[in-house]
């Protein structure tokens, strides 16, 4: 329990650093987790080298989904679009520093799914993006 709700997760849930929607932006995508109704919207700004210069997320959901979105946004600033596309499930778990069962894993990975669907310019998010 203490592991799952680490201080960083509670802190980022209560006072996120990257919450909002960038306007203008170069990339925007949003999606839900239909099982629990969690919703994440991601907006990114890119510089001339296709590097993320600013990132933000908006939406609602549990502490795990919101904290992972906030930590993920922090981690992508400065990355190239190709590096963003290459992010994996393990990268998110490393950011959170916890292990999750199959149900909560979906909460944690929603933001990555939305981010990668946006980065690839896909019309829809699918689970293969976070395998």
């Amino acid at each position, binding site marked *: 329990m203490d592991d799952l*709700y680490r201080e960083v997760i509670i802190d980022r849930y*209560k006072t996120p650093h990257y919450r909002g929607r960038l306007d203008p932006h170069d990339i925007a995508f949003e999606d839900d987790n239909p099982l*629990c*109704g969690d919703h994440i919207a991601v907006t990114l700004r890119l510089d001339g080298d296709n590097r993320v210069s600013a990132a933000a997320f908006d939406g609602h*959901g549990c502490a*795990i989904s919101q904290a992972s979105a906030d930590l993920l946004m922090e981690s992508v600033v400065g990355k190239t679009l190709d590096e963003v596309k290459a992010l994996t499930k393990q990268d998110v778990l490393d950011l959170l520093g916890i292990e999750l069962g199959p149900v909560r894993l979906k909460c944690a990975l929603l933001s990555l799914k939305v981010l990668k669907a946006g980065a690839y310019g896909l019309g829809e998010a699918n689970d293969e993006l976070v395998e």
Partner: protein
Amino acid sequence: MTLDVARIRQDFPILSRDVRPGVPLVYLDSTATAQKPVAVIEAMNDFYRHSNANIHRGIHILAEEATALYERGREHVAKFIHAPAVKQIIFTRNASESINLVAYTWGRANLKSGDVMILTEMEHHSNLVPWQMLAAERGAKLAFIPVTGDGLLDLDIYRKLLKQNPKLVAFTHMSNVLGTITPAAEIIRLAHAAGAITVVDGAQSVPHLPVDVQSLDADFLAFSAHKMLGPTGIGALYGKSSLLEAMPPFMGGGDMIKAVHLESFTPNAIPHKFEAGTPAIAEAVGFGAAVAYLTGVGMEAVAAHEQEIIAYALERLEEIPGVRVLGPSAGKKGGVAAFVLEGVHPHDVAQILDHYGVAVRAGHHCAQPLHEKFGLPATTRASFYLYNTRAEVDKLVEAIYGVKKIFG
């Protein structure tokens, strides 16, 4: 009539397990599915050990025993809801399939473009989506009885909607989120006066309240075994004989026919007309055993116990700062307490409750429109049954204080 809950708990093996070493299970998720007494588990075991065979076919002794046991299950279920005749009970997979059966057969045969069906805003998706599908197919319209702020149905609006001459009124007898016990007899009386037939979603009421289809005058009643101490995979549809006999079959296959030729068939009599293929035989035996167990305890006593537990739970929950329970006050609801805890998402609440061994559900509980109505994406739901105790309510409250501590 007070239940000997300590004695009842001994009949449910799962209730004595620890969820983790030293953490006993506090099962408060019976609205999702109920736990099973030894009587049900043993009845199904005995069936497979001693009597397993296909039914309505073989001449051998096992086939005869299996058929008799399956039909005895039907008899138990019919008696439990006071059906006039055993043949009025159709076995399905669950309450959802029971409702779909009515939509696909009665609905397709009787609904035409422009016809109106009345539902309520508090329906489970299973008593909403089948009618949406039927409405789309037939060009029919849906109208909804609104839910008031305190979780009751607005019957004044219902009376106005009835002026549209609806063909059908489908409603829940007990909300799986708000716990609201709806005035079913009154809703049905008004529907009949307007010329509509009624479909009652009894998935929550039949397990928890004495239900008498004759005094309700219900045309159809749908319910599931697994929410009333029985196995998953089987449910029932009760229907008035005149309606069931006039309805076309649901699925085609073995057992639902009287005679088959290459180009045509003659359907079997009810209830077999609606039971194509080999049914869930052991599950019917288990369903019968579950109903016999509940009858032995007495449904009046079950309902009275749940009234006592929910009243206590509401009192304890409402004293926690930041907790808001949805739905009507005690006395107007069954043993369901869906709540929100300010500043904490229901998934996080449920996760931390699980740490205390307390099993609850978090989400929209298959009633998304109802949650939208209240402006909530999700709630945490604790639900109670005949085996729950006041001490378990206390454990729930202690665990919610644990959540508040973590989230500061």
